[in-house]
């Protein structure tokens, strides 16, 4: 019995790294895109500390209007990007559930903007990749428009009430 367990553990230890390496080790979704950019352009994303906490706070402060905030920043990113290659890489990593709604690309490759959307029930996933020639940012967020609107209106009315109040 012990031999069998030992054999299974060894087999798993060998198979898992092989599978990960075979898949490129980049994963899919937001992380897949970020890792693929790092791997392809030999750059490192700036790690933003407490991003998970910031995502939680944004969710709580908007009553669930904004959730699952992910952000990766590539500073001093001045490489010229091939718009077609970048688009197909992002499309491949995000998968078919995401629809590309905006693409702006310049031939020089310095400026690139990609916006993808994905319906998530009452919410909508938004994925934005933007490069302005000096910095490349990747953002993913899940938005509930009704709740976000309610939060925005709450502050708008509060601001209007303050303006109407006589001095």
């Amino acid at each position, binding site marked *: 019995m012990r031999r069998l367990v030992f054999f299974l553990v060894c087999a798993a230890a060998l198979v898992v790294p092989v599978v990960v390496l075979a898949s490129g080790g980049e994963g899919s979704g937001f992380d897949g895109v970020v890792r693929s950019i790092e791997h392809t352009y030999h750059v490192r994303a700036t790690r933003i500390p407490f991003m998970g906490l910031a995502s939680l706070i944004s969710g709580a402060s908007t009553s669930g209007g904004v959730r699952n905030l992910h952000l990766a920043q590539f500073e001093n990113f001045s490489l010229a990007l091939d*718009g077609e290659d970048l688009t197909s890489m992002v499309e491949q990593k995000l998968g078919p559930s995401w*629809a*590309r*709604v*905006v*693409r*702006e*690309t*310049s*031939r*020089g490759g310095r*400026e690139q903007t990609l916006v993808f*959307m994905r*319906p998530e029930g009452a919410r*909508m996933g938004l994925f934005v990749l933007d490069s302005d020639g000096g910095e490349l940012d990747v953002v993913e967020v899940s938005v509930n*428009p*009704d709740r*976000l*609107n309610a939060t925005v*209106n709450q502050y708008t009315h509060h601001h209007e009430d303050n303006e109407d109040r006589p001095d």
Partner: protein
Amino acid sequence: MNRYKVAMRIGALALAIAGFALLARGQDGLPLPSPVEKELAARAADVTEVTLDKNMLGFASKFMTDNGDDAHVRKLISGLKGIYVRDYEFDKEGQYSMDDLAKLRAQFETSDWSPVVRERERGSKETTEVMMKMVNGEPQGIFVLDAEPKELAIVLILGPIRMEDLGSLSGMAGLAGPLGPISGAQHTPKPNTSSKPADKKGDDQ
């Protein structure tokens, strides 16, 4: 009737239904990028593409309030089936040909689509063409082809839309430039049912 014949007939019927379904989808949905669009994108210095289907428009409309202008735009875009924008900016003149324009226009040369505006300025070599899709006398789509010496823009809006609504939509991302030349139009031209395009300015080339 033997089983083979029955199976053949059912198969033929299924194929016909699938064909009609595909045809209907092609008429209602946004078009796939044509080969000429890819060629233009390859020649252009800057390319902007916006593709919003009914789901995405419905989502975008939720961000608008029920007050004032927002309410009108919200109602307008929530009824649309799709918005398709392509804008190509070129480094120099002559990067696209009349043949390219004809290819872009070709998919709208059906009985549903009628040319309503054709504006050509000989001096500046600028052309603006507007075609409207009419179904049972109701507007169900607008196609705009705006050609400038160093810029080419295509806008396709599917769904119940009128010329005077274009001004409201020009505030949306990607539409300000291409709709600029025509969004100021405050009238709804009657669709030209004849095959001859309607000239807004009579100096055709």
